């Protein structure tokens, strides 16, 4: 079984794919619709601006493919910008439409004395730890880099927050679709454990081989 890492021409996917390999999971970095739809799970990474990312996804037709994968019940994890893309819209540099897989919007950090981007290690606080992601994991620190954050429309989709002046959406989930605002592949042991939990869930509960 293979995990598809969606390649839509935005940023470096090397770290994410290597992190999965170290955990013992097979990955393919791909922009091929069939490879994505046949994978056991899909990772949607992303760095850069929301508008550019959506444009790349639309141009390559991968927006429909990711929506289709999500609708088919395939385990899907959006990372950082990739999580923001799952939602309806973002106000980053104008008003942009997202994938609309989860209801909600992406807004800029409210002004104040805190520095933007929110960059560095911050602690996860679980709101709902029932799902597969936090299995066996205590609340810990993960690595964030972002200037915008998600306001999910459904309270039940909010799985964890982090405190940066106010509770900021850190992890979301609904059925087979998940999102992490931080970079699990850059978040030390805690991040690797979260990634392992998602990948294990994607592979139908079977543990990956230790790499």
């Amino acid at each position, binding site marked *: 079984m293979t995990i598809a890492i969606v390649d839509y021409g935005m940023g*470096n996917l*090397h770290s994410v794919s*290597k992190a999965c390999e170290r955990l013992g999971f097979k990955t393919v970095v791909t922009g091929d619709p069939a490879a994505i739809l046949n994978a056991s799970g899909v990772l949607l990474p992303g760095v850069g601006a929301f508008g550019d990312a959506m444009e790349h996804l639309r141009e390559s037709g991968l927006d429909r493919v990711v929506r289709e994968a999500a609708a088919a019940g395939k385990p899907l994890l959006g990372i950082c910008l990739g999580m923001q893309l799952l939602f309806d819209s973002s106000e980053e540099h104008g008003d942009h439409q997202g994938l609309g897989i989860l209801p909600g919007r992406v807004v800029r950090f409210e002004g104040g004395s805190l*520095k933007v981007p929110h960059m560095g*290690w911050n602690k996860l606080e679980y709101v709902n730890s029932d799902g597969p992601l936090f299995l066996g994991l205590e609340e810990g*620190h993960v690595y964030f880099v972002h200037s915008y954050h998600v306001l999910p429309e459904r309270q039940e989709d909010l799985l964890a927050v982090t405190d940066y002046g106010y509770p900021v959406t850190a992890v979301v989930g609904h059925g087979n679709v998940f999102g992490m605002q931080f970079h699990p592949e*850059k978040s*030390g042991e805690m991040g690797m454990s979260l990634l392992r939990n998602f990948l294990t869930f994607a592979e139908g509960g079977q543990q990956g081989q230790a790499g």
Partner: protein
Amino acid sequence: MLTKRIIPCLDVKDGRVVKGVNFVNLRDAGDPVELAALYDREGADELVFLDISASNEGRATMIEVVRQTAGEISIPFTVGGGISQVEDMKRILRAGADKIGINTAAIVNPDLISDGARRFGSQCIVVAVDAKFNDAWGEWEVYTHGGRKPTGIRALEWVKEAESRGAGEILLTSMDADGTKDGFDLPLTRAVSCLVGIPVIASGGAGNKEHFYDVFTEGQADAALAATIFHYKEIAVPDLKQDLKARGVEIR
């Protein structure tokens, strides 16, 4: 709340880790990829690679070191040294680095900061500043070329400009403190931290755990960087973090 970060720095020449005392007398301290993985396991929050290779072959080797490191570690890392064009930045980020450190090249061509920030995002651009107290001015002066050349530029003005051009962080090295092990330069670190709205990484002078506590509290640094004391195990990262946590500093 964001935690204070502990950052080991690896000076790399032709693919091997070295560290000079006051930037001369280089000593070999091992394989960069292995050392990086060790620091990740020990709980370092981030790493900085400073490429001090003088040749093109050395630079090319560094790209390979970056690629291998990115595959081995799960914490963010910055690569600096000899980067003078946006294309250099692209190559290093593509190889898997998270941030780019620029120093001399940013002084020579400040547009490099703005261009890099526009292209890759401010969070990728770390402006490294080597500063030394200038007695005649009564404030700090920026030095370039590994701390050898005075520029006539006031450090406090330069960090402000770097920020306004889109720098995401300032890596601040005190030439006065570097290599002394007498502690970080608290007045300099504090002056810069109070002046800019971006994170400041204090560097130069770390000799014991107390020095880290001081630079996070009195110096108001967001992160502290050191090399020798970590490489030669004079201070172990887990001990240091435990100690800081026990004293009430927000630490991962």
